[in-house]
């Protein structure tokens, strides 16, 4: 862009190069404008209207945004979403990091174990939902069968308001294999001489973890935290397939309610307002994370 602004001082050759470059990226620019920028702008406009998709939108200003905060189901969706983000993201990070630490050690069948732990992250979502639906089944599920065999009454994993969110979070933890691979790569990038120096100084395993491993892997931790948080704000498929938002709205997450509003209740304007609110919250959360946790990360290159 600064090149464009300096066009008057550009040579003819530079201008030709600029236009040639723009020509080559024009398919991407056109696609980006048509399929990303335009829908984003349109959704902002629709968020200011009463729009049921089938009839022309009616401008109502900020009324959708105001009505959101009066909607008890919206407030419940927000609370559920915050619960999920604040719980699932750090837990997933811890589980993946712990697995990576274990699988970075010299173990027999290490490659096989790494594959086994990675597989859940590439299992199709609906297949995961079906498997876990059976594991959690109140009457015939694997978990309750084990509990019953030791004399404990069946637990309503997916039909209890208190337990449904933890039950869904466990499924997310089970699928931490992808994150584990990122941490594995980061762990293998830690120079061995740092561990050697620490051992010479008499550091224990925990001290090595705290003063060598974690700082050296911190950029990956920050990356996983931020992208995990963004993904957590988009959590939709598993609750949609497994619980449909129940019981009593306990697993109605923000994207699920957004989908219902836009595609079941004929309230696309309302759903657009929800989407923009989520976008703003995600951006703010990402900025806050970058400036707090991001500062803590150790970048050896600078």
């Amino acid at each position, binding site marked *: 862009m600064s090149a464009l602004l300096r066009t008057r001082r550009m040579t003819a050759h530079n201008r030709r190069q600029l236009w040639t470059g723009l020509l080559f990226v024009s398919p991407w620019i056109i696609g980006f404008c048509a399929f990303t920028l335009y829908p984003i702008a349109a959704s902002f406009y629709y968020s200011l209207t009463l729009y049921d998709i089938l009839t022309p939108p009616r401008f109502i200003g900020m009324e959708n945004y105001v009505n959101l905060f009066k909607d008890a189901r919206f407030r419940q969706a927000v609370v559920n979403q915050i619960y999920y983000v604040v719980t699932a993201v750090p837990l997933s990070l811890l589980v993946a990091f712990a697995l990576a630490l274990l699988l970075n050690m010299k173990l027999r069948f290490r490659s096989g174990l790494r594959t086994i732990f990675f597989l859940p992250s590439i299992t199709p979502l609906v297949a995961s939902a079906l498997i876990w639906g059976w594991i959690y089944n109140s*009457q015939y599920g694997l978990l309750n069968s084990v509990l019953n065999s030791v004399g404990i009454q*069946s637990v*309503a994993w997916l039909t209890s308001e208190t337990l449904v969110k933890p039950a869904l979070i466990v499924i997310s933890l089970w699928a931490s294999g992808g994150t584990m691979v990122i941490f594995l790569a980061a762990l293998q990038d830690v120079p061995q001489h740092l561990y050697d120096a620490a051992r010479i100084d008499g550091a224990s395993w925990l001290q090595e973890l705290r003063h060598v491993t974690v700082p050296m892997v911190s950029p990956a931790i920050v990356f996983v935290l931020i992208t995990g948080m963004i993904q957590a704000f988009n959590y939709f498929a598993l609750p949609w397939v497994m619980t449909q938002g129940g019981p009593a709205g306990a697993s109605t997450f923000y994207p699920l309610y957004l989908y219902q509003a836009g595609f079941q209740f004929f309230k696309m304007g309302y759903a657009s307002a929800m989407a923009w609110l989520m976008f703003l919250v995600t951006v703010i959360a990402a900025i806050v994370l970058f400036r707090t946790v991001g500062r803590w990360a150790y970048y050896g290159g600078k």
Partner: protein
Amino acid sequence: MANETTRTDEGVPEKNPLTRRTFIMGVGGAAFMAACGGKAIAPKATLPAAAAPAEEAQPTVPPPVVVNENASKSVAFWYGWNTPPQAKAARESIKAFAKDNPDISVKLTTGAQVDTKLIPAITAGNPPDVSHLFSAVPLAARNALMALDEYLDASEIIKADNYTEAQWNAVTWEGKRYAVPSLENGPRIGLIWNKGLFKKAGLDPERGPATLDELLQYHEKLTEVDKNGNVRVIGFDPRDAMASSEGFFQWWASANDVDYYSADGKTLNINDPKLIEGVQFVADIYKKLGPEKIAGFRNSYGTWTGPDSSFAQGKQAMQINGYWTPGELKAGGDPNQKYAYGWLPVASKEKFMLYGGHSMAIPRGAKDPATAFKLIEFFTTARAGQIMFDNTGFLNGNKEFFNQGSFRFAPDVKWFLTAGQESKVKAASPTPIPVFEEVRTRFESGVDEVVRGKRTAKNMLDELQSQMQKTLDEQMGS
């Protein structure tokens, strides 16, 4: 990558611009943009599992079936269901139509997800010519369908008298008819009970409960709970089948002479004291057994009358359901189970029956409505009705078929047909209000809260009434 230093030809250290920090920031930025834009380029190795769009959770739509491929006129028909018997019924129907109409090609799509895909198709200007509808008024009120009065008045096949006023009400908006009752339409409420379970519990298998109090007593006698606290057999689930969500309003309102919506479909009355009483009745049944125990039971068995349902498997003794029950139980239920049919156990002054169901319509933007209407006409005939019934047990809503059809496939459907003739038709189904899908969803969640003691029935219905009336007023421009 990070920290590596290269040297120029003169041996001067040249700092590598791509440091670890730059790389991480760049990838993080790309991931952030990807997360904002959708999952197209989002890295897979992040947590939790990526959110997939709802379509990935739906069954796959099979390829369309085309008859009379080279005919001069064509009709694209979206049919909402896709079980083998339903798909077979639809295919045989359009083949029969094609035989009588060699100049019309029909492209049939079964399992067409009409509740999610039809609206975008209409908005995009590329709708099917004929669509199966679960509920016509929400679309009619939003100008998504063509009014059919002109075609209906001229039709020599579709006679208005062959349908009840309730059936027409369910497809009428602001005085115009936007769909034709068809595909699955007829008398839709009665009490069905499992004779074997009744006998096992010491009850007369030929006599169902006559009042709500008796229903509760039967429910307690028939329910079995094992030592681990699991419900093995449930007497009655007041949130199953036609007693659930929308069905609750219909049967409870009919039994208590309550109008829960105005004739023009623009005013709600869903917090009537009698309806509050009804929700409380549901909550009382749930609280006695424990809402989590019943939810756990439901976790193991499906609702309605599918092969995996508690009723079809002999794990539920009583159900409020409609005329399709005999056919569905025959198609997918346990063949050792025996059932009886009777009136709802309510102390209503006069017997009543609900009429209505699904319909066929021509979406706005259809290219050849006159030809499309011919297909709709065909599906209302006794011939098409017989094909549908012989495969699925569904009725097409036409009295002509009710009077002359053969019901050997599921003889027990005759109870509903006879009951329908003996009783007053009190309510239309589906409820002809443009926002009823939202009412239904919020009501289900609200009842969940009531049965778990989080709020009272009055509080829930008062809030629902206020919220939904406001939404209705806004959306209809009142």
